[in-house]
């Protein structure tokens, strides 16, 4: 059961552990000023959309190994859409600030 929360909050941090083929744990290091919610230093993320180099958009092809390669230790941006009743954040996940100079 998913509780829709119409948020556009953003958090950043490093992936630490893959939980399933669509979810992972993240150490939160940065939070957008003006986020409507508070976020813990460790959050569980369920991926709604993805923009990560090396990972296909097709969720049915994802494996824990393929997520491990692109998520664990990587610096990630999570744009939060909603939250599950269990407290997982449902978010679009992308690599953040790879370049730009």
């Amino acid at each position, binding site marked *: 059961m998913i509780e829709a929360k119409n948020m556009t909050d953003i958090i*950043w941090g*490093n992936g630490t552990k893959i939980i399933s083929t669509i979810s992972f744990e993240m*150490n939160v*290091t*940065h939070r957008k000023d003006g986020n409507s919610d508070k976020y813990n230093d460790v959050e569980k993320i369920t991926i709604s959309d993805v*923009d*990560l*180099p*090396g990972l296909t958009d097709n969720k049915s092809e994802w494996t824990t190994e393929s997520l491990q390669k692109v998520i664990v*230790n*990587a*610096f990630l*941006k999570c744009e939060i859409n909603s939250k599950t009743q269990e407290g997982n954040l449902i978010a679009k996940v*992308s*690599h*953040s*600030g*790879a*370049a*730009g*100079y």
Partner: protein
Amino acid sequence: MWNSIIITNNKIQNKDIKKIINGKNSSIVIRNFYEKQNCRKIINKLSSMNLKNDSKKFNHIGPFLMNYTTKKNEYFQNAEKANNVFRKIFENVENPVNKIKSVISKSFPDHTILKIKENKQDYAACTIRRHVKGKEVNLHKDNVQYEGTEYSVSKINNQLSCILHLQETEKGGNLSIYKKQWERNLEKFREIEFGYSNFLKNDIVGDTIKSKVGDLVIINPNYLHEVTKIQGNSDRITLGMFFGIQNKTKKIFSWV
């Protein structure tokens, strides 16, 4: 001390390249690599062409692959446009991209420099960046093997960065490089927009390279580096390109 290898005769040897790959030296600086007169012609041409920048925010001509890590089609479309612009910019001067390729090629006598294509599309030949007063480039690395995994050029063993100085600023705008190689666990020290926390350079030996117009600087860009704040009134304008070295196939690719 961590020093540059200074070259004054436009010739670098493979052992020099190895020294910057393995971190024995910070960089190779080829003094007066490209004629100052040609640098001036390129600057004048840029001014007269009324070019639209690829990125208004950062003011550079030519797409930078790392800004398109998951947008390959967009990268190659912009690369094609940029390569057409570069052809016009370089039409009446010695082509600096070819000159840089030539010096790299000569330092790898048993390798072949290939014009790599992907789906029959060319990578961008170079990028020309204009940094204005007040601009600085945070501590960062360039590592296509990590962030460019969707591109063929990521399948390399070593990456080199070449920066040709087309116009210098009066004060600041120097390249500083630190004797600390990026590794994946440094991602926890990332800044949101770009680069890494300055904390990482504490107690790390570094080298600040003061370049003049026409100098070519070659570094291993996996060592953390930054550009200090431009404090002069003149813009800092550079031409940059990357080379990737494949040991097994003895091939070298270039891109930006």
